[in-house]
């Protein structure tokens, strides 16, 4: 161990697959990719230091998930731009698409274009921005059903804030649990474990088709220990939130936790690989 980081050998043995990589998350750049690629490069030292095997990012695909109409038009007319990061790092990157919950028709079309035909593996339901809507909005059911048919993964942004929702479009872990109970055939990832994880974990505890993702809040001690105790290591998925969060913040939540090494392997990659296996086998 050096600087609190496990040895390279140990990190390689964890086989880390990052489910929540957020380079240039809100906007990929005016040309459709430049800022995104710059941010991936910016993250590479941390990715290499952590010996990550794979990272999954969330692509904008021209269905109104940004406020930049010129970019949206560009991505609609030149969808090949969406693939640039995957072409640049084919062995490292995985992709999911950001859905616009206010544009059901466009989102349904995008599911066929990017999940059914590949190479994207699932969807991101945002908590802010023009594509965000509360996960209990009626049209979300249709989208969930289609993702489910395609075998895709659903990552839902969640935060449970002391001050309450900043926008009605935000989703809490409790609301995600409600949605998930309506779709027991589909597995959902509760991004950030709700941020305030003591309540977030409890909110999804009795909904077995909801897993929690670990990133997006400070390295608060005891999180992974409580999560493992309450829902088991099989329902926890590692995310890095790089580059806006750090390797130190996110990897230490798992490496420093007082849990077994096999449980760490579950969290760092085994669970996520299993989750992705359905759609990957179809593609």
């Amino acid at each position, binding site marked *: 161990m050096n600087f*609190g980081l496990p040895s390279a050998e140990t990190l390689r043995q964890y086989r880390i697959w990052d489910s929540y990589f957020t380079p240039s998350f809100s906007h990929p750049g005016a040309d459709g990719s430049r800022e995104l690629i710059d941010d991936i490069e910016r993250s590479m030292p*941390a990715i290499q230091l952590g010996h990550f095997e794979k990272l999954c990012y969330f692509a904008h695909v021209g269905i109104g998930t940004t406020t930049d109409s010129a970019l949206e038009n560009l991505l609609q007319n030149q969808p090949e731009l969406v693939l640039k990061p995957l072409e640049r790092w084919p062995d490292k990157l995985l992709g999911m698409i950001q859905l616009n919950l206010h544009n059901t028709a466009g989102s349904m079309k995008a599911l066929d274009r990017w999940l059914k035909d590949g190479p994207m593996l699932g969807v991101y339901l945002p908590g802010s921005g023009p594509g965000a809507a509360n996960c209990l909005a009626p049209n979300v059911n249709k989208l969930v059903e289609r993702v489910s048919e395609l075998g895709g993964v659903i990552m839902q942004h969640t935060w449970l804030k*002391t001050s309450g929702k900043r926008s009605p479009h935000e989703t809490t872990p409790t609301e995600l649990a409600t949605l998930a109970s309506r779709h027991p055939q589909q597995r959902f990832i509760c991004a950030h474990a709700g941020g305030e994880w003591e309540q977030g974990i409890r909110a999804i505890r009795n909904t077995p088709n909801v897993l929690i993702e670990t990133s997006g809040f400070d390295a*608060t001690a005891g999180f992974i220990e409580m999560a493992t105790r309450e829902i088991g290591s099989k329902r926890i998925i590692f995310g890095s939130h790089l580059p806006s969060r750090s390797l*130190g*913040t996110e990897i230490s939540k798992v490496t420093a936790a007082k849990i077994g090494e096999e449980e760490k392997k579950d969290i760092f990659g085994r669970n996520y690989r299993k989750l992705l296996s359905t759609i990957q086998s179809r593609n």
Partner: protein
Amino acid sequence: MAFHRRDLIHGAITAGAASVVAASPEENTGTISMPNKVVDTNVSLFQWPFRRLPLDEVDELCLKLGQLGITEAWASSFEGLLHRDIRSANERLLNTCQTRAELVPVGAINPTLPDWKHDLHLCLGRSAMPGIRLFPGYHGYDLRDEVFGELLATATKLRGFVQIAFAMEDTRTQSHHMVAANVDPRPLEHWMQKFPEARVQILNCRPSTSDKQIFSSIPRVVVDSSRVDGTDGVTTLASAIGIDRVLFGSHAPFLIPEAACIRMLESGVSAADIKEMMSTNADNFRKATTTTTTNHRR
């Protein structure tokens, strides 16, 4: 063209540079080890009021600090957040620190309590602590308040440094029944000009761009690294305010201490820069305040 983060710190690149590629991890991990002496300027003892923490027993905390190579830790007390009998809280802190060579006691002061100056004199005088820690968000005052100026003046006269907890946790995750706002640091500019000998450290800030601008405009104020996030967060903070004003801090046991350690390595800076942030800067900050006091361990 690839830039090293160390160049960012030393001014070769503007702070606004969008794309910065650090030294390769092999370059970092292959040659950089923890400095022989590491000062953690921000730990707390005893129990966090809202949940048990994995390292909230002093023995376990000290064992972990030792495993990480942290040789000195400036420790205050979680009891200082809510206890009104703050003298006894500080005495428990002092007694515990006297049994541990690596722990340096930093007493908590609440200037909204009657006769707070007595606590201050006990900490910096009789107990010979090198500094004190303040929790304005939990004690209900503002750095604009005259009482803060009076406290800073008195602490400075007693040659003590002052640590200000900008926050203790993300405001989004606080208990609904105990909401503590982040501290507004801007009034410090006035006080630091008024008291040119004053030494102040901000703790637990996850600095925004505007926070960094504010810190850079306040003379001499130093900042701990415990909540400085983003893969190049430490580097950009050092670039904004000067590397000599960044002091390593973990905010353990509330935060996982490995997080702050790894971020130092992740920052991509040189071994010399890491040593400065993890050791030298803390020594200089403390030395400036303790030239006339005796060692706290009696």
